[in-house]
């Protein structure tokens, strides 16, 4: 199969994720969309590794997974504490830091 | 390495500031005495510096040099020439008087106990300003100078914004708003100047490769460092702008009347007599040394601005209704004289300008501090609220008059010597400028005497009828200042001897010679 197709898929996934981040209000969904975007990148990296015939892309994909795992830990913790204090999981409610 | 005298002189007030700030809140009086002690100890060190300095020796003496940020060639380099010594001595001398005069300015108000007035903070900030001012007079590294030149804005900001006249403090929302307006204005003006200077400092580094004043000046002098004409001019303007804001030169002066009007009298003295001297000092040291050609290029424009400052400041002083703002505008006029003297590029002008910095410090301090005592008695800054004080408090009126006479440069008092030198120096090269500047002395007489007449003479106003005369503490502030004004007016030789060699160096930096008298030139 043509590896370029994987790239199209990755682009599609990334676009879906980005749209989700932008239009969804629920923090959990936004969070999942971010994960989706990360995975789209992973897919692209792996596809490129295959295309170029070296392992650099795959290694970076592993790094990304580690980072994504760390992000999930921190992110979920923030979401939980946010939900506790505000009783809502909407991103727009957390706007205290604005000037 | 010998004892780092210059570092010690600058560090001592810094230590004092920390120590004063650390005194527990309840022991207010102890903090005051501590601050006074440290300021006096600094004075002693400054005297040692002055004694150790040999006017006929090297240009920069008591030098210290250590690597600091070696990646960028920033060094911790200190050194003083005669001008620096004179100004360090002035600073160290004035601070004890400022502290003593502001003894009760930061006491908590009995009527409004809710507003906490950090007495310790007030004195600590004054000492902090002293430390920074002294080190900026000592720095021979451009970057080091820049840092402290800017850093002194921070304590000054809090001094202006945080401590107003007791007459108004906390009692009045409007006064408080005006005060913070003044403080912000002060900060913004000087920050903008500072930012532009920062750009010029970086530009200088790009061109010269290091920040050392001596190295760059030397390289400039022996031709190994060439600057394109435009580069030099741009860099010069960058530096000059910052100094002109601080000096303050027309039309960048409008922050001064606000700041001096809203601050307490001792802080106002701190601004005009000490901090602002940094601007004129830096013009002499940095602008002329680093950019001699550009300085000469800009001279005509600067002379015109200085002339405008002189006349304009004096005219506005005549029109003021507020005692402290009047003194502020008078100071603007005097700074015009100083800048005129610097850029006339004659020995007399520059010696006069340096002397002027010292003498203006003393005379403004005397006038402003007495005005502060007066204001604290009546609780108003408006000239119209006074009248006939002379009859009720003759000593106060007498000292006020002497301060005023010093401001109008009466011969026999110190400012006359410097003003005359500036005028002669300017006249020798630019006769027309000298003559116009001479009008300043008539206007100076006008605003001083109008102020004295309206406040001190005439029938006694009922509100001032029970005004007490100067107290011992207040007299202890004013009397030495007046004595110094008289001594330096009659015998200015100690200061001129200190300053002359430094001026000679500056003159050779800009490669200018004094114009010869006509009779000699003809021979």
């Amino acid at each position, binding site marked *: 199969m043509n590896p370029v197709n994987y790239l199209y898929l990755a682009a599609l996934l990334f676009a879906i994720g980005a749209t989700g981040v932008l239009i969804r209000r629920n923090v959990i969904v936004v969070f999942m969309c971010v994960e989706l975007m990360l995975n789209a990148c992973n897919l692209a990296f792996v596809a490129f590794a295959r295309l170029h015939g070296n392992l650099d892309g795959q290694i970076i994909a592993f790094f990304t997974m580690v980072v994504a795992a760390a992000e999930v830990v921190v992110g979920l913790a923030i979401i939980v504490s946010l939900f506790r204090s505000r009783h809502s999981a909407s991103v727009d409610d957390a706007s205290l830091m604005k000037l | 390495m010998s004892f780092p005298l210059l570092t010690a002189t600058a560090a001592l007030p810094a230590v004092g500031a920390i120590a004063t700030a650390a005194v527990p809140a309840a022991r207010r009086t102890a903090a005051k005495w501590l601050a006074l002690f440290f300021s006096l100890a600094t004075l002693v060190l400054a005297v040692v510096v002055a004694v150790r300095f040999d006017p006929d020796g090297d240009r920069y003496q008591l030098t210290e040099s250590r690597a600091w940020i070696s990646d960028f060639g920033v060094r911790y380099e200190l050194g003083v020439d005669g001008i620096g010594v004179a100004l360090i001595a002035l600073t160290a001398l004035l601070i004890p008087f400022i502290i003593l005069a502001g003894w009760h300015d930061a006491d908590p108000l009995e009527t409004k106990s809710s507003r906490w007035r950090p007495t310790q903070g007030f004195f600590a900030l004054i000492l902090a300003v002293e430390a920074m001012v002294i080190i900026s007079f000592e720095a021979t590294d451009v970057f080091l100078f820049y840092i402290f030149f800017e850093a002194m804005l921070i304590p000054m900001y809090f001094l202006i914004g945080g401590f107003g006249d007791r007459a108004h403090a906390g009692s009045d929302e409007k006064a408080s708003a005006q005060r913070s307006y003044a403080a912000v204005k002060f900060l913004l003006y000087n920050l903008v100047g500072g930012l532009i200077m920062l750009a010029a400092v970086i530009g200088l580094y790009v061109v010269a490769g290091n920040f050392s004043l001596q190295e760059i000046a030397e390289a400039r002098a022996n031709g190994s460092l060439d600057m394109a004409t435009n580069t030099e001019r741009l860099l010069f303007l960058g530096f000059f702008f910052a100094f002109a804001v601080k000096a303050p030169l027309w039309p960048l002066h409008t922050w001064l009347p606000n700041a001096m009007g809203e601050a307490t009298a001792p802080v106002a003295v701190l601004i005009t007599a000490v901090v602002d001297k940094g601007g004129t000092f830096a013009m002499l040291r940095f602008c002329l040394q680093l950019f001699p050609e550009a300085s000469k290029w800009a001279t005509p424009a600067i002379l015109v601005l200085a002339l405008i400052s002189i006349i304009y400041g004096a005219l506005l002083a005549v029109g003021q209704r507020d005692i402290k703002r009047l003194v502020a505008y008078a100071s603007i006029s005097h700074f015009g004289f100083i800048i005129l003297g610097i850029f006339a590029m004659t020995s007399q002008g520059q*010696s006069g300008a340096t002397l002027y910095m010292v003498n203006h410090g003393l005379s403004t301090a005397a006038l402003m501090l007495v005005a502060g005592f007066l204001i604290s008695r009546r609780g108003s800054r408006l000239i119209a609220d006074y009248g*006939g004080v002379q009859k009720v408090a003759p000593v106060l009126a007498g000292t006020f008059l002497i301060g005023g006479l010093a401001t109008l440069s009466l011969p026999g008092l110190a400012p006359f010597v410097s003003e005359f030198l500036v005028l002669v120096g300017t006249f020798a090269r630019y006769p027309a400028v000298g003559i116009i500047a001479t009008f300043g002395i008539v206007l100076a007489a006008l605003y001083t005497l109008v102020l004295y007449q309206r406040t001190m*003479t005439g029938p006694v106003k009922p509100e001032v009828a029970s005004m007490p005369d100067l107290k011992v503490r207040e007299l202890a502030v004013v009397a030495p200042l007046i004595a110094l004004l008289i001594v330096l007016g009659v015998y200015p030789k100690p200061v001129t001897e200190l300053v002359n060699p430094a001026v000679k160096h500056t003159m050779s930096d800009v490669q200018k010679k*004094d114009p010869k008298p006509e009779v000699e030139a003809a021979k």
Partner: protein
Amino acid sequence: MIALLVAAPLLGAAVLLCGGRRLDRVGHWLGTALAAVSFVIGLVLFTDMLGKGAEDRTLNQHLFSWIPVEGFQADVAFQLDQLSVTFVLLISGVGTLIHLYSIGYMEHDERRRRFFGYLNLFLAAMLLLVLADNYLLLYVGWEGVGLASYLLIGFWQHKPSAATAAKKAFLVNRVGDMGLSIAIMLMFTTFGTFAFGDVLEATGETGEGKLTAIGLMLLLAACGKSAQVPLQSWLGDAMEGPTPVSALIHAATMVTAGVYLIVRSGEIFNAAPDAQLAVTVVGAVTLLFGAIVGCAKDDIKKALAGSTMSQIGYMILAAGLGPIGYVFAIMHLVTHGFFKAGLFLGAGSVMHGMNDEVDMRKYGGLRKYMPVTFVTFGLGYLAIIGFPGLSGFFSKDKIIEAAFAKGGTEGWILGSVALLGAAITAYYMTRVMIMTFFGEKRWEPDAEGKQPHPHESPKSMTIPMILLAVGSVCAGGFFSIGDRFMHWLEPVTHHDHGDSPLSAATVTGATMVVLVIGVTLAWLQYGRRPVPSVAPRGSLLTRAARRDLLQDDFNHVVLVRGGEHLTRSLVYVDHTLVDGVVNGTAASVGGLSGRLRKLQNGFARSYAVSMFGGVAVLIAATLLMRAV
């Protein structure tokens, strides 16, 4: 020794002004004693000088180097020669007498100690002025006397009029001082020095233009200090000061400093005929101006002030004549010092007895009540109008002669003006005399309803008056017989007889004629008819003269009002324009940032949009760059 002359009164001033209340009881004696010390030292130096040959009478004393700066040398150094010793004796002599007089005059003033402190300060400054050996030190004395004059005119500060008069005097003087400082600067750039000796010797080495400029600037200075047109307006107001002050400062000594300055700078003026001409014109105009003002004033002190102006006009005129006139200028100065001080002290004595009333229309018939005052004042009167044999006769006559001797049309004009002045002098002085001492009593109770009880003043006041009267009678004759004064001053000022178109006898005859005319006119107007106690409206000229020939009105409209408008509008400009530009910039930056702030709305998703947008733009840009 010379320094002691200045130091003694200076010490007195310092002690009296800083000493506090403890000195209240002895202060006036201390002040008087120190003035006397100066006089004695002056006498010693004078006799010492008499013992030497005419050529080596100049004494120099270098105290210390004052302002040592590269290429600039100012020293504190004194020079005592025949000219300055003459002044020293006049200043300290008359000064001591007036100190003595003030003890009585100021007896009831609680601030008497301070008054004496100021008087001592004045003496010190004035002595410094005449003893300095360079123009810069002279300038110190010059402004020093200005300060003392300011303090003394405004001595009764609780009166707003006094405070205003003091301020005015200082300001007008400052304008003159400006002239002096420009003159010094010119000397510095021309000669490289401003020591008398060096400057005056080098006058030949520069062009006439420079010298004329210097001369005109010196003249401006002299106009300020000596109350000459156009800077004369302060002198009349200065009469707000206590009378001894008017006598000492505003008649005998300080106001003559301008004459000293011009005579001292004789070499400069000799080499600059245009400047000299200006000096004579100023002198001639002022002598008429002062005399006319003197005729119209009802205030006895202001009438005398007008007279002072006019007499100094004579001196300036003489000084402007060059070597023909220098000696006579100084001679008239000295004799004037005697008789005018005497007249003022007499006026003070009259006021002392009349509850401080100054309006002559409310005097009259005082000769019986104050005999000593009457006699001394009368002798002063005879001296000033130039009655034969008295001081004024000798000195004024010589000036008129010298004016004619100037030669040419100029000589005729100046001489005639001087003659006319003599006639007017005779007129207004007779008027003062008659209105004060003769005629009906026109006394009126003062503001508090107290009826005046004229009485003779105490001894401490009459003794100085008597001594001054003796001076007014004898000084002129003493100086003129055998031309003593001329020979005395000649080594310093030089002398030149000029060639008068008229003989000395003719001039003297003419002077006598105009004198008689003046006195007769005054007698016809004030002696024969009763003097109305309210001033009649008078002619246009009289009304103008009462208001100092409208000069004050001019100043008020042009300078005061104009200045007020200027400063007001500048304050406005500073606030709105200069400050406005900066504040406007600040406001627009603030507005911009306010709008930018709205971008930070706190919605995470909108931040994300901008992030995406930004990344997209960056990528697009990168691609584009690649493609290019």
